[in-house]
């Protein structure tokens, strides 16, 4: 597939590296409680306004699902209304087509520099590399994206791209890029670093010929893009350059402005705990002749890149995703490894579902297993996507497409056969728990388990009391 090369096949190897990376582990340990506390605050403010999370999320999921049910119709409506307001609407099948369209636009309009506000689709397309190859300089302007661009790394989180970086690392990157000596930094210096980025990036905003943004939503009613940001870079990128290009997935349409209002009660609260993000911009068409600011030309690029294939399948609910990041913020696997271990654009539970679906099941074999099954992600998702169930569905597909190792597939078949024969199953499990109990070291643990040594490589296997669940259950019922 074209676009960003997936490294998702190396999940296990990368997981080992990430676990051993002390700096990364420190950054993750600091970040997790902040993320969860922020969402909690957001949920408290919902409740204070008499809104019930479950009720609101049912409404949000229904809006997103209604669009998916008739996605072709909604896209055509959006397209017609956007064009009526003077925007151009282009379509791209995959990342390579996105890059080609943008490079062509840049050539046609003699573009030398591009300022970008966050667009995950441009990551999918590896657009920056394509622009550089065409002699156009892309400048990421979201502070987190700017930091990872300086580090020449992909983002490690969909709303906090540089969550894996410490302040010392940021200072070193800035020092090298901005030509100043490195300094020892403390948390109290964070405002100074943000100020430094503001001052470096301001002239870039003013000089850019083209602004590229994503869109949180496309509004069919008005042919508009909705952009939700805190830094103001989204506003600058879409106001100052003469050409504005919106790159977004085809699933991002919502019907009305009222639907935007409903989704906006959940998106910032789920993402950063804010009641509303600092800037919500509703952008429609181009500037009129008597206006002093705004782009002369607005181009929408609607991208499929594998999404159409999910429609009508058991994985369709994944297309409801509004990219809030709550699932990864509440994921024990994500916070053990960070986002880079997942190997492609999207990390955490939503990435574990999306990456195999968009890049190929055989290209991301471990991701559907990167879960403890705790369902925290499913609990917090503002559009009610059953993430663990979708991961289980992907595992089943792996089994059927013979993508798992032969031994594993065989073991699963044997288990399936046994599970349909309760008497035999009970008799065997009885024997097995006794055997495990006998193997244990007297403190209820197995240190090295010869049958599956990988299991006990990094931890002990805890062992129960030597009686099977069925036995314990029966005993309990007798009491």
């Amino acid at each position, binding site marked *: 597939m074209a676009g960003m090369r997936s490294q998702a096949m190396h999940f296990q190897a990368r997981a080992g590296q990430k676990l051993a990376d002390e700096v990364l582990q420190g950054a993750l340990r600091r970040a997790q409680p902040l993320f969860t506390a922020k969402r909690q605050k957001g949920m408290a403010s919902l409740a204070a306004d008499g809104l019930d999370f479950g009720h609101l999320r049912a409404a949000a999921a229904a809006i997103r699902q209604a669009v998916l049910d008739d996605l072709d119709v909604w896209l055509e409506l959006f397209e017609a209304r956007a064009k009526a307001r003077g925007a151009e609407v282009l379509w791209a099948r995959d990342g390579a087509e996105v890059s080609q369209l943008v490079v062509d636009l840049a050539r046609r309009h003699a573009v030398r520099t591009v300022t970008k506000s966050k667009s995950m689709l441009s990551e999918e397309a590896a657009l920056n590399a394509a622009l550089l190859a065409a002699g156009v300089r892309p400048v990421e302007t979201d502070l987190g994206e700017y930091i990872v661009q300086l580090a020449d790394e992909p983002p490690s989180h969909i709303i906090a791209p540089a969550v894996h970086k410490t302040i010392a690392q940021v200072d070193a990157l800035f020092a090298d890029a901005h030509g100043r000596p490195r300094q020892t930094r403390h948390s109290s210096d964070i405002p100074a670093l943000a100020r430094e980025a503001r001052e470096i990036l301001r002239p870039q905003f003013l000089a850019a010929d083209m602004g590229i943004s994503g869109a949180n939503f496309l509004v069919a009613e008005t042919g508009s893009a909705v952009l939700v940001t805190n830094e*103001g870079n989204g506003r600058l990128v879409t106001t100052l350059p003469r050409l504005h290009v919106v790159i977004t997935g085809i699933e991002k349409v919502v019907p009305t402005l009222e639907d935007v209002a409903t989704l906006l009660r959940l998106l910032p609260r789920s993402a950063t705990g804010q009641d509303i993000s600092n800037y919500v911009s509703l952008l429609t068409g181009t500037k009129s002749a008597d206006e002093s600011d705004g782009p002369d030309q607005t181009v929408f690029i609607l991208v499929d890149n594998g999404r159409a294939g999910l429609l009508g399948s058991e994985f369709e609910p994944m297309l409801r995703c509004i990219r809030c990041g709550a699932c990864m913020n509440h994921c024990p696997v994500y916070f053990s490894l960070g986002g880079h271990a997942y190997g492609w654009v999207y990390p955490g539970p939503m990435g574990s579902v999306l990456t195999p679906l968009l890049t190929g099941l055989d290209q991301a074999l471990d991701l559907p297993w990167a879960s403890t099954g705790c369902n925290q992600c499913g609990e917090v998702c503002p559009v009610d996507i059953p993430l663990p169930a979708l991961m289980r569905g992907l595992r089943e597909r792996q089994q059927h497409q013979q993508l798992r190792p032969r031994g594993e597939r065989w073991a699963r078949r044997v288990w399936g056969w046994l599970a349909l024969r309760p008497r035999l199953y009970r008799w065997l499990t009885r024997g097995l728990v006794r055997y495990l109990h006998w193997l244990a070291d007297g403190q209820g643990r197995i240190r090295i388990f010869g049958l599956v040594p990988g299991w006990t490589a990094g931890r002990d296997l805890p062992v129960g009391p030597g009686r099977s669940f069925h036995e314990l259950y029966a005993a309990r019922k007798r009491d």
Partner: protein
Amino acid sequence: MSARADILARLRGAVAGSDRVTRQAAAEARLLAAARGPQPVLPPDGRLRFQQRAVAQACTVDAVAGWASVPAAVASYLETHDLGTVAVATPDLAAIDWASAGLRVACRGAVDADQVGISGCFCAIAETGTLLLLSGPQTPATVSLLPETHVTLVDSRRIVATMEDAFALLRAEHGQLPRAVNFVSGPSRTGDIEQTIVLGAHGPCRVHLILIGETV
């Protein structure tokens, strides 16, 4: 096949449901209905709620009785914060007698060198303490964007409860949307370094509101 035709064909193959004409009509009907989702229960005093939420968003808020007091209120804010006496304002505010308070105000779009931008707003939203600014020849978007300090004049009678109410007002008074509708809630901020929120990213670092009309 063009990418457009290809993608739409794939989508049509996947969506079940009735024929296209019926589905199109249903979509159009949904647009016309403009149904609202679950609504918040807000306190009756919209002005107070707006003020509280704006302050929670790190805005500063002042109140004056009428438009005649605006220049003095702006001048006193600028003086307190040592921000000089020069500002840029949106052209729709040209009729205000800025010079009466010793201010030198240019009414035009803002440029990078401008330190203070003064604008009005289309309306304000009590639920979240948000300003709604429309772009236009008389209200260029740069004034609320480029300067480090943004002063907004808010007519108390134009405070609505929710974003839905703001959209209803917008439809009633303007019909179609202007190029940019910007919902602004406090000064720009970033949490991208160690998840620590700092005020003043790429947009204004200070947002000061002057509420105009009867005080609480």
